[in-house]
């Protein structure tokens, strides 16, 4: 914690408890009196949204596990029984399925926000890396959860992803067989995935506690990137950010509810409502949308092992990012050149996601055939994903290291309060303002 605790136990019971287990003090210091920069914009509400997402997934998941049967002959039907016969089962299951997508929407916003405002830079490297660990665990959890309904895409998705490990030299095949517990994805695989899918969220919750702990040691970053200097720069977390996060959560839940109630299968694949059949692969294997950028990177590389390495490398970039970015300026608000490259980076990620959902040979511009370059036509998804993947890696490995040494950043304000105090007219701002318009 930064600074000393301001908690003062009021009643006798509180005093009694405080000398034995200061849990109320911990909650008070973390959630009530925690000094938070007063200029956090709506992009900073996604941490709270993510905590809610994790809570929703755990609660709905525990409920689903009460009705789900992890057996190849019964898994599909038990999910349908939840949808048809269990009281409000449709609600719980659609919340869980769409909740996964909402979780990833929120985590991507949260990560891009961190990238933009330089939240990975000293002294927040450990905070950032813990976030990357959470993201990795989330991906593992989501992948295994998607296998559980045992539909066509569940099964063949599991086949494709577990086969990735087969690309590793020498040990690859043994690892794959070990993961499967057999010679193909089958009942043992489903059973262990169910067990791990139940375990991992609690590991996520554990790392989330570390993530919040690290946050409370170094304090929040903020849109200016300038460190907190005085009490004037901060407000207590409660009520200022509880109400702001609460409002953002409520708006987020509106979007969540629109999916759950009115379009619950929009983010899923129709083929997953066909029971798994190991003898027939669906015509078009696609992962869930949140994996598409990595899937595109995988397919962009013609070599199996290299593809797998590039895909994992794309995630590894995030872990070493704090030492790749050489700029001393945190927020890109004061780095106009970096800002431009950042938005191209966001675009590259979206393009990768788009390519991941298409067949590699599909034309980008319909009907236009240009010329064959190496293994594919230049106007194909595979080439588009190669360009985007190249930019993805350059952003981390070339642009950020070099730019920090060469660019001329704008002047940063002396303190968080300075820009506000010099422009008093800007004080209270509207709800949907973009980050750039805010204090």
């Amino acid at each position, binding site marked *: 914690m930064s600074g000393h605790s301001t908690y003062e136990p009021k009643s006798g019971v509180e005093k009694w408890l405080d000398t034995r287990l200061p849990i109320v003090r911990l909650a008070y210091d973390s959630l*009530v*009196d925690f000094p938070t920069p007063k200029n956090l914009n709506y992009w900073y509400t996604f941490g709270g949204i993510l905590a809610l997402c994790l809570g929703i997934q755990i609660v709905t998941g525990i409920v689903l596990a*009460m009705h789900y049967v992890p057996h190849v002959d019964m898994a599909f039907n038990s999910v349908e029984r939840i949808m048809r016969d269990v*009281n409000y089962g449709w609600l719980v299951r659609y919340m869980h399925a769409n909740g996964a997508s909402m979780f990833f929407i929120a985590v991507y916003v949260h990560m891009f926000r961190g990238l933009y405002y330089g939240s990975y830079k000293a002294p927040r490297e450990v905070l950032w890396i813990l976030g990357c660990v959470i993201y990795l665990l989330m991906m593992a959890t989501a992948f295994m959860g998607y296998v559980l309904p045992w539909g066509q895409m569940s099964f063949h998705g599991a086949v494709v992803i577990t086969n990735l490990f087969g690309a590793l030299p020498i040990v690859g095949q043994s690892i794959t067989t070990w993961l499967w517990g057999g010679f193909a994805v089958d009942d043992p695989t489903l059973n262990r995935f169910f067990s791990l899918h139940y375990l991992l969220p609690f590991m996520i919750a554990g790392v989330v506690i570390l993530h919040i702990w690290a946050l409370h040691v170094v304090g929040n970053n903020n849109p200016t990137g300038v460190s907190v200097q005085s*009490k004037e720069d901060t*407000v*207590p977390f409660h*009520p200022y950010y509880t109400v702001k996060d609460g409002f953002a959560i409520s708006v987020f839940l509106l979007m969540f509810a629109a999916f759950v109630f009115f379009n619950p299968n929009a983010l899923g694949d129709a083929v997953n409502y066909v029971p798994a059949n190991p003898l027939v692969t669906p015509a078009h294997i696609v992962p869930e949308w949140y994996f598409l950028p990595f899937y595109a990177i995988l397919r962009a590389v013609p070599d199996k092992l290299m593809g797998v390495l590039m895909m994992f490398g794309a995630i590894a970039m995030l872990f070493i990012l704090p030492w790749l970015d050489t700029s001393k300026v945190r927020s890109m608000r004061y780095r106009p050149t970096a800002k431009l490259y950042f938005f191209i980076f966001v675009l590259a990620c979206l393009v990768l996601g788009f390519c991941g959902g298409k067949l590699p040979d599909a034309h980008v511009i319909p009907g236009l055939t240009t010329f064959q370059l190496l293994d594919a036509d230049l106007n194909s998804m595979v080439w588009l994903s190669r360009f985007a993947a190249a930019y993805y890696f350059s952003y981390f490995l070339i642009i950020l290291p070099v730019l920090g040494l060469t660019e001329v950043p704008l002047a940063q304000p002396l303190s968080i309060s300075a820009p506000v105090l010099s422009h008093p007219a800007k004080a209270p701002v509207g709800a949907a303002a973009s980050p750039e318009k805010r204090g």
Partner: protein
Amino acid sequence: MADTVVGANPEHAAGEDPNRRDFIHIAAGVAAVGAVAGLAWPFIDQMNPAGDTLALASVEFDLTKVEAGQSVTIKWRGKPLFIRHRTGAEIASAIKDDHAALRDPQTDEVRHKPGKAEWLILVGTCTHLGCVPTFGGGDYGGWFCPCHGSHYDTSGRIRKGPAPKNLAVPDYAFLSDTKVKVG
């Protein structure tokens, strides 16, 4: 920080009605609690019996399979159901004890359908702690529960041992002379 409590915020503009401020915060808080409470019900109700479970809650049984003096046990709602074809002697012994000192006083007549004294249909779980009593055992020739020694007579009434109640009679109806529907 001194101004962590909203109502105590000293900075609010003069002339503003603090009660109105409080109202909106309280309303928002109540709405949050209401949302959680409203969503709690589906998460509680999901543990109640599901549609397919409820649909299987009744069984039909053909009585011609049970000889006089015998009892069969079938599964109904996950529990054993005793269907006992009583002999004249068993019926007589049950009626004889109608006015004995019973822990849970009931006449034999209310424990079977009118004119069907030979058919006794009971839920086969001991009213003590739910074990399944064995047929024909005990001091009264009805059932004996091996778990804690409850004795039931030929009408399924508790006569001795820790159980507080007679064996329960489920809802059932004769569809014909030889067919009953339970549940």
